[in-house]
């Protein structure tokens, strides 16, 4: 055990000495891994927030029927009663033009978006909630179809269309993340492996002497593995910091950035486990790159 501790101490000292000696190559490794993981992290973060939005909205997306023309409250209530009578409908809420405008301002904070727009461009609508048993896509479509038959209704939207598109977008984000993960990961491995190999070449005299005084292969290679691991970990931390910086910048100004995309769902950063995974991925990339760099016969 004490011998293992001694070996670890020697390995760490030698690794730090190697990093100091090949500072340029070490920096290249850290930057490569950092930028690679940053790009991958962006897609992880976007995907995580899109997923959060999906979970936040869940099954609460109602069928919305927009009136073709402005209607009085009495007329609107008549259409509410007719909509409530449809099979599978649980509740119907009338949203006046004024209420729609107030909600838009409240949710999106889009005062500046409405600058120059005369009057109230938002139509009045009926928000139709379906009963639990009617939330299947077929029922929602049937209700939407019935609402389209109402003379006063100009357009009907129901969440399923939006959800399908959104889920597809999420799948695309995930696919990009995995593709980039593999491609950039391999590229980073190549760069890390090359820089570690350069470092090993620069220290070939030391490696030769170590072999001459009886050092085992793992004793010679260990410091390079530690070097790769530490540089990869530093790259992971760098990616995390860059990601946090980008996330902070996108949150400002209030009401812009993520809030525009996500509506009422608060944007979130990577949770501790995801952050740790990012750093661990960097360490893993660095370690594998180093292992590949110093593999093979070395006398």
């Amino acid at each position: 055990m004490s011998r293992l501790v001694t070996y670890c101490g020697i390995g760490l000292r030698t690794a730090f000495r190697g990093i100091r000696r090949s500072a340029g190559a070490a920096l290249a490794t850290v930057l490569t891994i950092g930028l690679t993981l940053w790009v991958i992290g962006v897609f992880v973060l976007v995907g995580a927030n899109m997923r959060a939005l999906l979970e936040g909205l869940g099954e609460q997306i109602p069928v919305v029927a927009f009136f073709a023309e402005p209607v009085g409250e009495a007329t609107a209530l008549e259409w509410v009663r007719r909509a409530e009578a449809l099979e599978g409908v649980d509740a119907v809420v009338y949203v006046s033009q004024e209420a729609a405008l107030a909600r838009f301002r409240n949710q999106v904070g889009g005062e500046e978006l409405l600058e120059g727009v005369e009057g109230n461009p938002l139509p009045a609508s009926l928000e139709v909630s379906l009963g639990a048993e009617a939330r299947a896509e077929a029922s929602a479509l049937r209700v939407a179809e019935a609402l389209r038959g109402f003379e006063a209704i100009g357009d009907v939207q129901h969440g399923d269309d939006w959800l399908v598109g959104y889920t597809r977008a999420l799948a695309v984000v995930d696919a990009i993340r995995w593709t980039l993960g593999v491609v950039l990961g391999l590229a980073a491995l190549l760069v890390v492996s090359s820089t570690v190999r350069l470092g090993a070449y620069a220290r070939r005299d030391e490696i030769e002497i170590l072999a001459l005084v009886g050092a085992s292969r793992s004793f010679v290679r260990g410091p390079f593995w530690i070097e790769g691991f530490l540089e990869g970990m530093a790259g992971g931390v760098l990616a995390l910091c860059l990601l946090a910086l980008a996330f902070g910048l996108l949150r400002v100004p209030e009401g812009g950035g993520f809030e525009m995309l996500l509506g009422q769902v608060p944007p979130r950063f990577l949770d501790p486990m995801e952050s740790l995974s990012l750093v661990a991925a960097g360490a893993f990339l660095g370690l594998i790159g180093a292992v590949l760099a110093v593999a093979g016969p070395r006398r």
Partner: protein
Amino acid sequence: MGDRKGARLGDPSQSQQQPGGALLRAYHLKKSYGQGGFAIADLGFEVGAGELVFVTGPSGAGKTTLLRLLFGAERPSSGQAIVLGRNVGRLGEAAIRVLRRRIGFVFQDFKLLPRRSVEENVAMPLEVVGTPRQETRRRVFAILKRLGLEKRRQRSPLSLSGGEQQRVAIARALVGEPAILLADEPTGNLDAEYTLEIMDWLADVAAHGTAVLVATHDANLVERSGARVLELAKGRLVADTKAGER
């Protein structure tokens, strides 16, 4: 980072006690490179513990090749090189590295690392066997003091004179208390004063029980030492003069 394969093979020091105390043995040892004839041709000799032996001969006689064969840096074409009871030619790389931990080697070109201090250079053989740091420092200081280099221990080898660098190389070879010390032209780069100093040290090392084999072409040095001499010519052993026979 230890060498489990090597550990399984056992500590060579445990198998070094041969009948008669020979630590180095060569039997019909041959080494050839392609069609170029033999660099070493049918050598046979033994070196015991505490013996100082010079290997002499002109350039190309096979002195360095012989040392490299004994050190496991080369494989014999035929015959056997038995070092500390192990047939070097049949050992795997890991086992050779383990064996080297019991052999000190002083190189003609010193092979010191300029970016490491004297102390760090000397500590290398102790580090590879996992010697604790405090123990390493103590032993390094002791050997440097013995060689008069303790005040130079923090300096780069590049800042030392040729003789001092050679002493650092000897210190590194001896710090692990090897059973065998091989030295290839250890005074080749030194002036007369340093040469005598180094030779006195090698004799002292042998007097402490280490088998010392020194390759040199310096006839005066050999003459002065009065030690045993293996004289090579074109890879063949042409004379084995015991100590005191000259």
